[in-house]
Every structure is written in C-alpha cells, then in structure tokens.
C-alpha cells in the first residue's frame, strides 16, 4: 500500500485550500460539521460521524435557482448557477454512498438531470476517509456498505500508523496526488471494528406490510419535526418558493422589486407536506407519513432506482427526539413477514 504522511496530507490540503473551496470536518461548539476551511489547521482530523452529511455540499439546505427583477408587470429573470470548484476532505463511506443515491435522482437516467446539482457534483472532488470503527448507532454493513468501503469517492484514505494509506479511485483523485511523495509499504490497514448486523427485510417483503397497524402505532410518537430527513444523506425532497432578495445584494433600481426563487430542503414527515390549496391533506396522519419515509428508503426508491436509499449512517436514530429507530423499524418489518410453513410431509 502507498502511504501519505500526516505532514504531506496537511500540505496537500493547504495547497487545495489556496486554489479551491476546501470543505472539511470542523469542530464547532462540540459538534462536527462540514465547513469551508482556509487551511488544514482548522480541520478536525480525528472525528466521529459529523452532525450532517456532505449532502449540503451538493444540495444545499437553501439555494438560489434564479433571481427575479419585477417592475410593475414587467419581469426579467437571471439564472444562478454554482460556479466554484470544491474539494471535500473527510468523506465517510456512508456519506459517499449517500451522494450516489442522490446522483440517481438528480443526475440519473430516469428523469431529466438537474443542472444545479450536476454542476456542483461535477466541480467537486471527494477525499474519503475510512472509519476505524462503527459508531454506536451505525449499521452500514447491514445495508450493503462498510466502514472502509473505498468506492464512491475520488481519493480514499485509511488511517495507518505512519499516516494514511492512500488509494486513487478516479483520475481526479490521481491528479490530486501528482507530485506527492508517497511511501510504499507492504501490508494493509487493520480492518475496522464492526457492529453486529441488524436484520433487514428482503426488498419484496415490504409491499405486504403497507396496511399494517404498526405504522399508525409508530406515528403516535412522531412529532413531525423532520430532523430525520435533514440529517439523512439520501433524503432529497424540496420546496420551491420566491423570497425577497436579501438586503445587501445588488438592487440597483429603487423602482424594481428584486426577488430570488429558492429551493430548500423539505421532508415527507412534515405535517403539511402534501396539503394542497383548499386544505385537503392526503397524508394527514403521522403514521402515514412515517410509513412513506421508511417505504421510500427501502421499497419505493429501490423500485425506482435499484439500491436502498439508506446508508446505515444512523444519524436519524441519534437525532430523533422520540426515539424512532430505523433499525427497530427494520426488525419489526422483518418480523411481520409471514413465515412460510412447509407443507406437512405426509407420513
């Protein structure tokens, strides 16, 4: 394996920060967040799972799609496209999987690609960092991932004694390493510590559990707070609305009203998610909404795009104020699956 020393890595990151936007884990008031940094000195190299995934680097909580200048009945529009190149350091394998799940929705074949997401994705280099161990609520290995999974990033790092084992996954990752001094050593990084797997129902098992009373009972607890979706690396529902352009941005003509059309995160667990004008709310019950969220992850998304839309990161378990635990839901659905009783062997 090839090793990059801690010194060489910090040098590389400092170099990146001088040329591009560098996003990395930063400790902020006791939590770890992915934030733009000016240099390696700000980075938390030894970190557990950050509060939010790297989703926001591609699909920001709020982003401007276009600006609107309105003067009486006359309107001019200006498209706003993200232009900056960025490098994200410290991408955990679960979050890299999450980006792949978003790719299918925003840059896939099923529907027309979204240029905002596509532009950001194209301009972003991902530097992955393997986990040494799974966190208390992690279950990536149960949904197809692994703490040291190397795919889905451009450059993969794994902590070893003298620095990081480094593997270029894409040509973009390779070019990051150009001119770097790497040491060649025999051996491999020690494997990460794993949690026991949790039961995950087979893909086909979900369909029959849609009408189960379990969902209404689970809904009794739900506060419709939407935290689960905000921390989720694969949740991607959004709202679109027009807002006044924030003060301070260029507003040259006092007779003109300046607005922006923004897209912001939303969640199917929110009470008014499907409420239409006039007041009809087709998914009015908490249980119906939670059911939709879990079916989306494990049944609807897989039918639409193939893989599961859950990376096993466990964030939703950590943040839920009423302890709705996806692994308990998985276990419950797995237990609901009717057991096939073998035909009696005739004596």
């Amino acid at each position, binding site marked *: 394996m090839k090793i990059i020393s801690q010194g060489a890595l910090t040098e590389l990151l400092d170099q990146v920060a001088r040329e591009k936007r560098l996003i990395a884990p930063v400790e902020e008031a006791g939590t770890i967040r992915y934030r733009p940094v000016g240099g390696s000195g700000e980075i938390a190299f030894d970190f557990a799972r950050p509060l939010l995934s790297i989703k926001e680097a591609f699909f920001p909580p709020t982003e401007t799609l*276009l600006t609107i200048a309105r003067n009486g009945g006359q309107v001019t529009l200006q498209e706003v496209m993200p232009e900056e190149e960025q490098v994200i350091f410290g991408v955990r394998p679960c979050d890299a999987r999450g980006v792949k799940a978003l790719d299918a929705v925003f840059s896939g074949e099923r529907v027309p690609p979204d240029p*905002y997401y596509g532009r950001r994705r194209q301009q972003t280099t991902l530097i992955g960092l393997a986990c040494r161990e799974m966190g208390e609520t992690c279950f990536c290995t149960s949904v197809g991932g692994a703490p040291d999974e190397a795919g889905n990033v451009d450059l993969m790092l794994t902590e070893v004694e003298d620095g990081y084992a480094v593997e270029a996954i894409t040509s973009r990752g390779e070019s990051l390493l150009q001119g770097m001094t790497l040491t060649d050593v025999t051996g491999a990084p020690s494997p990460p510590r794993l949690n026991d797997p949790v039961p995950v129902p087979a893909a086909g098992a979900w369909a029959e559990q*849609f009408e189960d009373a379990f969902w209404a009972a689970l809904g009794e607890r739900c506060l419709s707070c939407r935290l689960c979706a905000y921390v989720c690396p694969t949740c991607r529902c959004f709202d679109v609305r027009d807002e006044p352009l924030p003060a301070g941005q260029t507003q040259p003509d006092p007779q003109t009203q300046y607005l922006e059309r923004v897209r912001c995160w939303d969640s199917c667990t929110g009470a008014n998610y499907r409420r239409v*004008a006039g007041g009809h709310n087709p998914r009015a019950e908490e249980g119906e909404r939670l059911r939709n969220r879990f079916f989306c992850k494990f*049944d609807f998304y897989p039918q639409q795009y193939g893989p599961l839309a859950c990376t096993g990161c466990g964030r939703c378990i950590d943040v839920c104020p009423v302890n709705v635990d996806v692994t308990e839901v998985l276990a419950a659905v797995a237990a609901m699956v009717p057991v096939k009783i073998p035909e009696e062997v005739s004596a």
Partner: protein
Amino acid sequence: MNRARANRMMPQLARLVTVRDMAPEIKMFGVELLNGNGAEFAGTRPGQFAFISAFGTGEAPFGIASTPGRGPVLEFAVQRLGAVTTALHELGEGNMVGIRGPLGNCFPMKAFEEKDLLVLGGGVGGAPLRPVLHTILDNRADYGHLTILWAARHPSLLLYREEYDDWRSAASTELHLTVDEPDQDWDGDVGLITELLQKIDPSPRNTVAITCGPPVMIYYVDRLLAEMGFAPDQRYVTLEARMHCGLGQCGRCNLGEKLICVDGPVFSMAEVEQMRESYL
C-alpha cells in the same frame, strides 16, 4: 435558449394575453411565451400540465386547458384557492408570468380511436378535459359516440359554458349537465354526477371512461363505473397533487413508488389499482 431548455427549473417568460372571468373565483388565463409558444408547446398533448409562476409568490402546476391545434395561446382555468392562485388572480392582461412545461404524460388519444367515449368532469377539476374534448370534436370521425357528463356545485361554476352549443351540435355527441344547488333558471339535472351517471347508465361495450375532478368525485364515479362493468383498463383518470418540480425530483407527489408528475398525471385504473397508497 439552449441553456434555458437544459435547465428545466428555469421558467420561460410569458405574457397574459387574455384574462377572462369564467365563474366566481375561476379565471381563464391565456398565455403567450415572449419568444412564441415554440416547439415544446406545439406538441402539447391532452392531459399534460405546466407550472405557472406568479413571480414574487412562487409557482404551481395547472392542467393545460388548450389544444395546440386550435391556436397558439396556452389556456389555464385557475381557481383562486391558495397563495399562487391568489397572486395570479391579481394579474391582468399584459402582465408577465413564467411557464414551465409541458410536463407529465397524456391521455392515449390514439388508443381511444374507434371507441365510444364517456367523459366525466367535475367543477374546476374538469378543466384539463377540454383538450380531450377538443381533440375528439376536431377529429370527430376518428372516435365513436361521445357522452359528456359535466357537473358542478352550482350553475355558475359550470366550466366552458360558452362551448356547450358546440359540443351538443357535434355529430354523435351528447352533453348532460348536473348541479348540486340549482338556481331559478336551471332546467338541467340536479344532484351528484354519480346520480346522473346512474340515470344515463352507459354500456361499457367498446367504451372508455375518462374522469377528472376532485379525488372524492373520482372515487365514487369510478366505483360506479366498475359496478357498471367498465374494466380497469377502460377507466382513465387524471390525478393531481402538490408539486414543486414536475420533473420527478422534489418527491412531493408520490403515490407509493409512482410519481404523479412523471408517471402521470393520467393513469388507467389498472395502474391505480396496483398502487399501494390511495389517491384520496
């Protein structure tokens, strides 16, 4: 232009060329894109929808109520109900709006050829049926007998009243009207559209039924059609939902694994019956 087409979240600027009161709280907007209603809208098919932007408030999806064959102006029947529709109702002729579309699938009008058609519309929900009717009337020889059941709460809320004479006078076409709350001048049927349907008692033989209206109307009409012997693949509906992209991305309009925006809004009941989640 290419850029705008590639970015399907980017509305095209358009001008309101006509704003007409159709019914209390319902206006018919005629819209023309600033660069002409180009190739996209020339290919609009019955059942498709578009987003209209009321700039400063936002955008919302509306069924396209016009047919390209009858002229280039796009028409939408809009009831004032929420934020976007209220903002639209405040606009007048000459004002600018945004348009994104056409979006969604359409009625398989080709497959309906040679068949008798039963078209059931309720209130403003029936607005997107107008292109279906126009297509049949403009190609009258291609389709069989046409029976239109048209309903509203009150006579003043019946859509497209100025076209009824045209509909009635077309070959092999009948129009039946019903309202829940008649006024003094009303001489048509009184009651729900299901009662009218029972009275007409159409034969399902070689017939396709197309229903569009509020979900609860669709539900009861469809149940009755099923009882009358219409098979699931003889029953078509358009469904609607809150949407924010119309492109299969915002997630908002799912019914189970189906998205109304890209898999619909037109569905046969054969498809709807496969859905785990109810459209109600």
